[in-house]
């Protein structure tokens, strides 16, 4: 489904601020896989997501999605293949537009834009049906501006918008990190429900080790721009957060894992 080979990305090359964000990354993702990704701050997780989505282009290497080489395609040229939810709940929706208008934009993903009405009764019916799945009562607030919703509601809506057109790949970049624990759990549950429902191929970055272990069926750990651990489903099921830390230390040749941003509970 997704094939990344030999991808390099360097920021500020040739200056004192040079930073190798991705170093010869290789990754093959099969259809239907749900990969969780962990790694310390600055490991290159977001950069990897941006390379897949086209928000950034790699310095070298190739990216293939569903057999199509998309390496040099801009974000908007491959958006028909990819659904995305960002960390910032404000980032995935247009605040001054209504819920139904936001959904209409999502529904038109990758299609040729016309001068037909963006929202009509037929689409409204579909939107109501989809919004009901979120359990937030949003199906009765189609004409509310999204800016009036809470962060959790906006993130739930973003998740719906990214997924209900069934993209080839769903990218989630710490999409629960900005929410309080209760709302974060709600989004986690929704994520599992939606991914399961559409059998979406998913890559989810998280800073929460338990989330990384409990969700999905494959786990990657990134460090210094490289994938240092790739744990398959069977092994992942048996692991605890402590085992992950040990595995990290082993992979790094004894270097202790120092990252207080990781949650161990």
């Amino acid at each position, binding site marked *: 489904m997704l094939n990344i080979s030999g991808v390099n990305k360097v920021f500020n090359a040739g200056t004192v601020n040079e930073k190798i964000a991705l170093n010869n990354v290789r990754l093959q993702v099969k259809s239907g896989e749900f990969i969780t990704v962990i790694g310390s701050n600055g490991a290159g997780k977001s950069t990897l997501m941006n390379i897949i989505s086209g928000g950034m282009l790699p310095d070298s290497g190739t990216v293939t999605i569903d057999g199509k080489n998309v390496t040099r395609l801009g974000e*908007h040229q491959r*958006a028909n293949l990819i659904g995305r939810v960002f960390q910032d709940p404000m980032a995935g929706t247009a605040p001054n537009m209504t819920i139904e208008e936001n959904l209409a934009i999502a529904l038109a993903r990758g299609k040729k834009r016309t001068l037909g009405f963006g929202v009509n009764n037929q689409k409204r019916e579909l939107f109501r049906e989809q919004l009901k799945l979120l359990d937030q009562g949003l199906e009765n607030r189609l004409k509310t501006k999204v*800016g009036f919703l809470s962060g959790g509601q906006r993130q739930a809506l973003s998740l719906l918008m990214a997924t209900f057109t069934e993209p080839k790949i769903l990218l989630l970049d710490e999409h629960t990190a900005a929410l309080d624990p209760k709302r974060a759990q709600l989004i986690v549950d929704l994520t599992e429900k939606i991914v399961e429902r559409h059998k979406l191929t998913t890559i989810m970055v998280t800073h929460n080790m338990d989330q990384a272990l409990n969700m999905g069926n494959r786990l990657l750990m990134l460090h210094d721009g490289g994938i240092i651990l790739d744990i398959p489903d069977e092994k992942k099921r048996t692991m605890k957060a402590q085992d992950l830390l040990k595995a990290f230390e082993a992979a790094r040749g004894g270097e202790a894992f120092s990252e207080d941003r990781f949650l161990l509970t």
Partner: protein
Amino acid sequence: MNLALMGAIEQGLLFGILALGVYLTFRILNVPDLTVDGSFALGGAMAAKMIIDGYNPFVATAAAFVVGCLAGAFTGVLHTKGKVNALLAGILTMIALYSINLRIMGKANLPLLREDTLFTYTKDLGIPNLVVGGITWLTGAAMVFIVGILILKLIIDWFLHTDLGLDLRATGDNPKMIRSFGVNTDSTTIIGLALSNGLVAVSGAWLAQYQGFADVGMGIGMIVIGLASVIVGEVLFGSSSIFRVTLAVIGGSIVYRLVIALALQAGLNPSDLKLITALIVIVALTVPTIAKGIFKKQAVRTVKGGSDRA
């Protein structure tokens, strides 16, 4: 109402098209576009020249729309593809248009004295003034203008609710999000700037026909007048929906003209008008921000939005 105030309403209506154009860039795209001063005069020049050359005034006005769109698209390409700062891109087009407008007209001022124009057509309709209780409220011409601009407003309302229109609005509201849904924001920005300046040029074309001449300097200060109309309109008449705000913007244009007319009647020097206009915009821009600051301090909870629109 006296003659000056009735004239102010007529002018408010035809400058309302300018205001709708400025609304498209300033509010919908969230881009300050200074092309306006050039494209307004471009519309006037184009229409006047074509009418003098014997073209039907409807055709001449449509041509003004087309060249206005081209001017806006040029600014858009400069800004998106050439990565020129939006303000500078607009200024560059505006300056270039000054020479182009002179070329089109052949001289600095083109009178339309004995020509058929949209305005002479309007008067030929012979629609009587609206008189209620012995007071003339609206001229016949103003009533035709109202119908014209309301039709235009409804077309804009419709456009902003189409798929393409939603993309345009989202481009101004959250460009990162709309790109993730497959929209090329360069294209939507160029389309928005084109339509905006097309409308502005129509306003210029209409003004040239109304006042009976086109002048190379007729666009000076139009961007500020457009902004004043948008901001005053929003403050006075609200901006809760597209339908409402497009109406508010036209209302703002009329109010602006009435205020100017009253100020002149009160003995204000016409050469001070631009200063007054700038002051109106400054007050309208800063007062809501200041008021909001005070309100925020009092309020315990505030609604969070993305880009903030005062």
